Every structure is written in structure tokens, then in C-alpha cells.
């Protein structure tokens, strides 16, 4: 049995921790201590097997199956921005976590910042030496993150691409649990990223399969409704066990505030409609509309976080069916953007954070009615680029030949960042928000966002940290400061 603790994003007066108990055959009894004092935390998810009994191998007693048990616990009644030590004891094993509560407000002082780490797309098989973890852990000496946004594809459940998976929910659940365990338990994996700061996850397609919920021509299990359903059940059980931001339920958006920032974290994947009528449920849309109203009423600055970019055109039906449909391919994209437009109408500039696309980019869009920057989108992707059979080999051969005749290409498998559309959501918003690219970042990366209050607004500095040892591209790129000025 092996215990692991990671901090989760929580309101400022409490801490939430995720507990993983690996290689166990039953849920252990737990003793918790907070700063050395015995406590009984609130259980948001009672420690339980990530694989329900129905997903265990048939004919084997559950007490004979070593597996992962996870729980999420909350420690209320704490002070904001304060360091606490949490210890959990299970039998003769124990784990200790030192973590801070979130600050109640973005700092106003010149030498203080709210630091947010934005990451997405981590394929452990392409980072076996744990370089991502090393670089993220070293960020602490430069600017310790207060929170981490895990913006999707924290696991690639559908890899290896060319392997046929049995269409069996128990087999799939066991495979998915191993994938998660590799990243969450380590060694290496995603452990340093998960430990860096309280984190909040949203899923993207690879928490399910490529282009979920649509059939993928490369994934045999996804070609039948029953196969898709079995895969979805197993994937959601793992997501609930490892990532779901309790007390939220699957598919529900999460809101939290660090004044004057108001975050809305949208799961635009779990409830996607197979007929592409919507990417979020009606309930999620209504919650978003309420968030926009509250953000305007409270004169806050909105931060909208999604698993896919808003600043992209729809892709063709064939490309979408083979690759991954974009948010504009769903009928509710206009509803989503019209909702965000209300922030611009009220003179409240907003940030959009996302990942997914395997390159980084900063785009601003100006409101032609005011001349002000209305939206700034920051993309951070990938931490570790997923293997793409065929395309990787072609790119590497091209890079090898290119290296013979010119400078070395440090990112032979990575694609160049794409241009944004000329106007943000031109069908829904017409030509009101022209887009301009402020920065492009190729290669493996994480993004550190630093926020400080300035006047009545917010100053944002964006730093792209390349995940590489390649001397020519290892230097971080700083963009900004970008100033959000409210009307």
C-alpha cells in the first residue's frame, strides 16, 4: 500500500486534498492530522476503489485485486493564504502534504503576485525522464504557483493508438487505472505538477478517447454505441476517482473567486452531444449566464477556462470526424460567445485559458466599439506531446533532412501555432472583435500567469516555460504586461 496526497483548489477558508491509496485491496481506515492536531475532515469523496465492483475482473474476489483507492477531503475553518501541514495515516503508512490556502485577493503590492500555472496535454511515454516535473518543481524558486489549472488531456487513455483494446469494461477500467496510476503515483509522471499547487482539472477528449463522444476511425471500441458506452463508463469512473473537482458532479462547471478575478471552469467535453447540438448542458449554460451577470455586477474580471479554444474556426466534417471537432462545430457555440459578449458590453475585459492544440499562443481581440481589449486567450499545450504514429516519423525524417542543410530543429514533432480567425466568432458576434496574435510558442511548455492589481484593473504577465534541455529554446518567453481595464 502506498499513500499519495495532492492539494485541490478550494475556497479560501478551507483546504481540499486528494488522497490516493495504491496497491491496496480494501479501503483503509484513515487518521488525519492538521498541523499536528488530530482532525476529522469533511469527506467529499469517501476513500473508495476507483474501479466499482462491476468493473473488477469477473470471478475474482475484490479483496484479491490490488488497485487504487481514492478520496477527497476538506478541512474547513482555515485562514486564507496560510501554510498548513496535513498528514494522513493508514495502517503503518503515512503521507504528509504542506500546502497553502488560496489568497482571498489578487495582491496590490508591487512585489506580490497571484501565480497561476496553466498546463495541458501530458503524455507520460514521451517524458519518461520526468523533465516536465523537474522544470515545474524548479519554478517554485522563481514564482511559486498558488494554483494549477489542468486544462485537459492529463492522461491519454486511448493510447497506444494502434493497439486493439478488448471491448470489455473491466479490462478497460483496469487499463485506464494503470494509465492514471502511472501519472498520479509515479515515479515521475505528472506527480510534480500535481504537487506544485492546489489544482483544478477539466477533461478533454483523451480523458475519454480522441474526439469523444464521436466515433474515431482509429479506435475500434468507439465504432459501436455499446462499445462507446462501455468505454465512457470506465473512463468516467477513473475521472471521478482521480480528477473530478468535488463537490462538483461530472460535467458541472466550477466557479471560484480570488477578488477581483472570477473563474469559470467549463467542462466542455463530458456532456458533449453526439449530434453536435451542444458542448455544455443547458444547466451549465445557465450557470455560465449567472456567472457573467455576477461578474458584471461585482465589477470583477472574468477568467473563462475550457478544454478547447474559443478562438478557432469550425473545421470541416471530415476533418472533425477524423481528428477532433472544435467548439464552433457545436450548435451552442454562439450561445456561449453571446454570453461572454455581455462582459464586453459591460466593459469587463476577460481572459480565456485553454490547452488542447499542441502549441501555445496568446491572442487578444479588441472591441471595435470601445477600442479596448475585450478578450485575451492564452493557450498552453502540450506539457509532453503525445505520440502520433506515422506523422511523427514523417516529421522526424523531414527534420533530419532539414538539419543537414540548416540549423537544428529542436521540435521536429511539434506543429507551428496556427493563426486565430480574423474575428472572434464572426457568425455570432459579427465583426466586433478583431483578433491579433501577441505570441506563438512551439514545443513542450507550461505557462505561468502572474496577476497583480493595478489601479482599478489587473495586470497580467504571461511566461511560457519550454520543457526542454535544448539550449537554443529553453529560455522562457515573457509576454506583457497586459492590463485589463474595467469601464
Amino acid at each position, binding site marked *: 500500500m502506498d499513500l499519495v496526497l495532492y492539494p485541490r483548489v478550494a475556497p479560501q477558508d478551507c483546504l481540499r486534498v486528494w488522497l490516493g491509496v495504491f496497491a491496496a485491496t480494501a479501503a483503509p481506515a484513515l487518521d488525519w492530522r492538521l498541523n499536528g492536531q488530530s482532525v476529522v475532515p469533511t469527506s467529499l469523496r469517501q476513500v473508495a476503489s476507483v474501479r466499482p465492483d462491476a468493473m473488477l475482473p469477473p470471478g475474482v474476489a475484490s479483496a484479491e485485486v490490488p488497485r487504487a483507492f481514492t478520496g477527497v477531503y476538506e478541512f474547513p475553518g482555515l485562514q486564507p493564504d496560510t501554510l498548513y501541514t496535513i498528514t494522513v495515516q493508514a495502517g503503518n503508512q503515512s503521507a504528509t502534504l504542506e500546502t497553502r490556502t488560496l489568497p482571498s485577493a489578487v495582491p*496590490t*503590492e*508591487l*512585489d506580490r503576485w497571484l501565480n497561476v500555472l496553466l498546463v495541458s496535454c501530458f503524455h507520460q511515454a514521451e517524458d519518461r525522464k520526468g523533465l516536465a516535473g523537474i522544470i515545474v518543481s524548479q519554478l517554485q524558486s522563481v514564482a511559486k504557483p498558488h494554483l494549477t489549472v489542468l486544462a485537459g488531456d492529463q492522461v491519454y487513455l486511448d493510447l497506444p493508438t494502434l493497439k486493439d483494446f478488448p471491448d470489455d469494461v473491466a479490462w478497460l477500467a483496469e487499463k485506464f487505472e494503470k494509465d492514471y496510476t502511472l501519472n498520479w503515483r509515479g515515479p515521475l509522471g505528472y506527480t510534480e505538477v500535481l504537487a506544485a499547487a492546489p489544482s483544478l482539472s477539466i477533461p478533454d477528449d483523451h480523458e475519454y478517447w480522441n474526439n469523444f463522444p464521436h466515433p474515431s476511425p482509429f479506435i475500434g471500441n468507439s465504432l459501436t454505441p455499446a462499445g462507446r458506452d462501455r468505454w465512457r463508463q470506465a473512463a468516467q469512473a477513473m475521472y471521478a476517482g482521480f480528477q473530478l473537482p468535488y463537490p462538483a458532479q461530472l460535467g458541472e462547471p466550477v466557479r471560484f473567486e480570488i477578488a477581483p478575478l472570477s473563474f469559470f471552469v467549463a467542462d466542455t467535453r463530458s456532456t458533449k452531444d453526439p449530434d453536435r447540438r451542444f458542448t455544455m448542458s443547458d444547466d451549465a449554460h445557465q450557470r455560465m449566464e449567472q456567472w457573467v451577470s455576477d461578474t458584471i455586477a461585482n465589477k470583477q474580471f472574468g477568467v473563462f477556462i475550457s478544454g478547447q479554444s474559443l478562438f478557432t474556426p469550425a473545421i470541416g466534417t471530415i476533418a472533425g470526424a477524423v481528428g477532433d471537432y472544435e467548439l464552433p462545430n457545436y450548435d451552442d457555440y454562439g450561445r456561449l460567445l453571446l454570453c461572454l459578449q455581455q462582459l464586453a458590453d459591460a466593459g469587463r475585459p476577460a481572459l480565456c485559458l485553454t490547452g488542447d492544440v499542441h502549441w501555445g499562443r496568446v491572442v487578444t481581440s479588441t472591441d471595435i466599439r*470601445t*477600442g*479596448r*481589449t475585450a478578450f485575451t486567450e492564452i493557450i498552453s499545450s502540450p506539457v509532453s506531446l503525445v505520440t502520433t504514429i506515422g506523422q511523427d516519423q514523417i516529421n522526424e525524417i523531414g527534420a533530419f533532412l532539414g538539419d543537414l542543410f540548416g540549423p537544428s530543429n529542436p521540435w521536429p514533432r511539434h506543429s507551428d501555432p496556427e493563426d486565430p480567425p480574423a474575428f472572434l466568432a464572426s457568425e455570432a458576434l459579427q465583426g466586433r472583435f478583431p483578433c491579433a496574435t501577441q505570441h506563438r510558442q512551439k514545443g513542450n511548455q507550461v505557462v505561468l500567469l502572474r496577476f497583480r*492589481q*493595478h*489601479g*482599478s*484593473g489587473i*495586470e497580467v504577465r504571461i511566461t511560457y516555460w519550454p520543457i526542454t534541455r535544448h539550449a537554443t529554446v529553453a529560455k522562457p518567453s515573457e509576454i506583457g*504586461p*497586459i*492590463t485589463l*481595464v*474595467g*469601464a
Partner: protein
Amino acid sequence: MINIISSKASSPNTLLQEVPRRENEDNLRWLSRQPRPGEDQTSIVLVGGTSMTSFRLRVAQSHVRHDLVPSYWSHVMLLGQPARTFATTPVYEISLEPPQGFTFPPPTNGVQQGRISQYRDPELYPNIALLNTPVALAQVTEALDAFQRQRAVLDGVELIVRWLTYVWGVARAGNPLLDGYGIPSAAMLEIAFGVAGYDLTPGLESRSSCPEAIWQAAKWWHEFYVQQNRSALSCVYHVGHTL
């Protein structure tokens, strides 16, 4: 092109008043007869000079104006706690023409402390304005102290060097404002007032602050301050020289 936004106000701030200079009145006497700032207010002084450095700075700021004519103003400074004699009242600034030279500016991030008497001469500084902001002086000076230790937030020394190369016409140095580098003293005040929660140049989304942008805030951005539940800038001024 500099990304400066025009205010939607249809008429200038009524708290902006022209106060002509009396015959043979120097800037100290002109300033002395203006209303003192309240306890919860801080004063800023704008000056427009006639030296070559001032001329270059005033022309550089024409890009912040929609009509592209040179600014009235070449420099801006924070007026400190009033001294027993007004002439010795301290000013906090990053001047490109410091009377004692630059010495070694990094330890203070370029910030200089001088006296208001440096700006007495109406021939050298024919344009003058006194702005009162609704921010307590202690808040601003505290932020200014922090600014001197935080070059990472805004490198005042870099701004000095960039602006001197432009003002002196070194090599092919262009107008730093067009690259988003504010005039040092204005950029310093922008940061200090920002820490105190006050937007000194709401028309700008970047760090390219300058005396002209502060003047425009005083003249045209009064409605913005009201929307922010803050008092607008009040200002008295005299313009004796235009380009």
C-alpha cells in the same frame, strides 16, 4: 501607432481650470496661490519646457494626441509633503535633465528626489499644471519606495537609457513611446498610483505612460473616474508656450 483610447466624454472636465500667470510671476509663486491639496489628496505637477530635451519630449508625445501636435508637457513629478518654505518642497521624479546629473541610478530604480524650486523659471518652463488626485500621499510614497526596489516590475533605468538615446539622437533611436516605453517619470507615477488603486491614465492599456496621457486623463476621463466611484482629477494650469 500608440494604442491610446479616446474618452467618450463629450465635454471637458469642469474641474480643469485655466489660471493665467500674472505679470512677472514665476512658477513657484503661481503654484503657491493654488489651493493646497486635502489630507487625502496627492498633487502632481506637470511642466512644459523649452530646452532641447523638453522640445524632443513634447514632440515625441504628439503621437498620443489625435491631432498629432506636440504636447504642452515635457515632464511630470510628484509633489511631496509641503516644506516650511514652498521652494524647498520635495519632488519625486525621474528627470532626463537632473540638475546634479544621474550619478548611479540603479539603486533607486532611477528615482530622484529634488526640490520644486528647480522648476521656478517661467522661461525654461512656461507651461505648468497642478493636478490633485484623490489618493493619500502616504499611499503613493509607500508605493514609490517599493518601486525603487522593484526593477523587475518596471525598469526605470532602462527607460532613462532608452529615452536619452532618443532625446540625444543616438544612432537610429526611434520614439520609445511607439515601442510601448513610457516617459520615465510618468511611468513611475503610473505604477505608484496604480498600487494605490488609482488609474492615472485610463486611456492607455500599456505602460507607455507620458505627461500628455496624464493631461488627457485630467481633461477628458472624468466620467470614467465617476463610474469607478472615484473622484476625477482636478487641475489648474497655465500654458504660455505652444509648438
